[in-house]
């Protein structure tokens, strides 16, 4: 049913539709409203599950690791410092191949302290071995959350659903919450073949000698690559039932004749979609929406840039001393092509800096430069800095 809901409320209702058996979370802005609302659903008897209030995010991740290993469908959510505090456990969940679903309400990392949105947090755990899916709007966050359980349980890999903090979590807008019957039809009960069972004891997370460690890492890598097909299927099957797609791994929109592409992750694409209409005099461009950062869809990306001369990779995080995070991966993937587009790489909207409509025509002008822009924090005003810091 279509309702006017805050993104966080919609996610809480959606998680309940997925019938988790164990929820463990520690509150942190901008994730707080999600778990507050889940705890209300539990207290009101609308969601029957074990809700574990823990003393830290490290424990929240540990609880869902243990509960999922014992065969329960689980949920947790966090952001920013909370995600960093989970980091050690995140690697353990993924390396043990435990299907856990988590919402990351993307927020900047301290210091300087900021409660506002960018994507430095999920980028910081990019290599933890989780599937990472980025949501363009609250409807995608709802639909991706449901898909995430199916993907996680089919692949035995954890899935991080990344939704921009505040920009999505705290925005009230019309959101369709699917019927319980639809979700039940899509999402069979969780059956974990390797579940911890006292009658048939096994160990997980044991010491692995060099005789097998590289093979374990190889198979984990391969599992993530193989997950690409499951992500596409999960989206297609959801579309068949609900009528809505989240765009699989990567989508391209815009005129075929465009020679400029703009690649984004997360919610900024909504602003750019309207900017295309507001600035008809700006150069024609295709918008590339990267939904799956892990697995990284190299072939889909190579196909998506056909006909492009310039690709502007817009990200919401950086690797200080290196440059962008997504940009270099895109460059590497496209370097395999005979005539790759020039890749410009910028970060914008760090720590909640507003991303106005008129940023779009300005960034398109990068395509006119004689040399591609290797990397810049595009909306930084260096006049605010001492000369030696510019």
């Amino acid at each position, binding site marked *: 049913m279509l309702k006017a809901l805050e993104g966080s409320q919609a996610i809480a209702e959606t998680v309940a539709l997925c019938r988790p058996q164990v929820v463990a979370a520690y509150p942190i802005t901008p994730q707080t409203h999600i778990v507050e609302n889940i705890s209300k659903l539990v207290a009101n008897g609308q969601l029957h599950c074990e809700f574990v209030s823990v003393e830290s995010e490290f424990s929240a991740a540990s609880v869902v690791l243990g509960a999922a290993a014992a065969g329960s469908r689980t949920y947790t959510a966090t952001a920013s410092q909370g995600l960093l505090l989970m980091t050690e456990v995140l690697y353990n969940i993924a390396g043990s191949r435990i299907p856990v679903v988590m919402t990351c309400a993307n927020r900047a990392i301290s210091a300087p302290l900021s409660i506002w949105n960018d994507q430095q947090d999920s980028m910081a755990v990019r290599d933890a071995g989780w599937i990472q899916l980025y949501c363009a709007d609250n409807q995608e966050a709802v639909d991706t959350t449901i898909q995430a359980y199916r993907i996680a349980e089919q692949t035995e890999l954890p899935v991080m659903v990344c939704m921009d903090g505040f920009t999505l979590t705290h925005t009230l807008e*019309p959101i369709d919450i699917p019927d319980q019957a639809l979700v039940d039809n899509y999402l069979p009960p969780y059956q974990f073949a390797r579940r911890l069972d006292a009658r048939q004891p096994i160990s997980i997370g044991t010491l692995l000698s060099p005789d097998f460690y590289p093979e374990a890492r190889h198979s984990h890598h391969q599992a993530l690559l193989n997950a690409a097909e499951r992500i596409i299927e999960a989206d297609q099957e959801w579309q068949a039932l609900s009528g809505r797609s989240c765009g699989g791994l990567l989508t391209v929109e815009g005129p075929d004749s465009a020679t400029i592409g703009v690649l984004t992750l997360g919610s900024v694409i909504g602003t750019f979609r309207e900017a295309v209409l507001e600035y008809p005099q700006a150069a024609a461009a295709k918008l590339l929406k990267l939904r799956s950062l892990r697995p990284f869809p190299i072939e889909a990306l190579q196909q998506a840039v056909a006909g492009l001369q310039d690709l502007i990779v817009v990200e919401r995080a950086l690797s200080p001393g290196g440059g962008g995070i997504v940009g270099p991966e895109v460059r590497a993937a496209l370097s395999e092509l005979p005539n790759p587009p020039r890749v410009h790489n910028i970060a914008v909207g760090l720590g909640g800096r507003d991303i106005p409509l008129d940023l779009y025509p300005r960034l398109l002008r990068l395509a006119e430069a004689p040399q591609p822009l290797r990397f810049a924090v595009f909306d930084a005003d260096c006049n605010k800095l001492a000369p030696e810091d510019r």
Partner: protein
Amino acid sequence: MSMIEIRIHGRGGQGNVVAANLLAMAAFAEGRYGQAFPNFGAERRGAPVVAFVRIADQPILRRCQVQHPTYVIIQDEALLHVPGVLDGVLPGGGILINSSRPADQFDAAAPVSLVTLPATALAREHLGRPVPNTALLAAFLTLTGLLPGQALIKVLGQKFRGEVLARNEALIAAAIQQVSANQWQQPEVNHA
């Protein structure tokens, strides 16, 4: 597309975000699209809070802050001393200020209409609490004719029942009496 953009200034605890959400929910209840989101510095009572609302007849995709609102609602007149509070209001737009002083005692420094409403006093009288948001929203909808006043009561009915709802309805009726209906009515801003 045609769209109305609104900015609400207040302090933490005055129901700023709630006011923005109520407006967007009321738009949704009337079959339109609404978007509401907050911006604040520190998450604490008394700190300045800004909330944004967009209302349109089509899905709203942009997520940038509202820089050029048609209307601004000020829940605490002391915030007028904060730089930027009245920035960017479109010519011909309107500013609604919670104040017991007459409008001619304020200077908008722009060709916009300025209206005051003693919203805190009205809320004290009808709710027994100094929460100005509902009275301001009722006056705002009356001034603009943007949505029927009934839409506000409809969404309040999703939150409150019984005596609390009745008090809010009385508050709304009193606030409506204090402003001129459709004084601010105007065509919506056309966005491509």
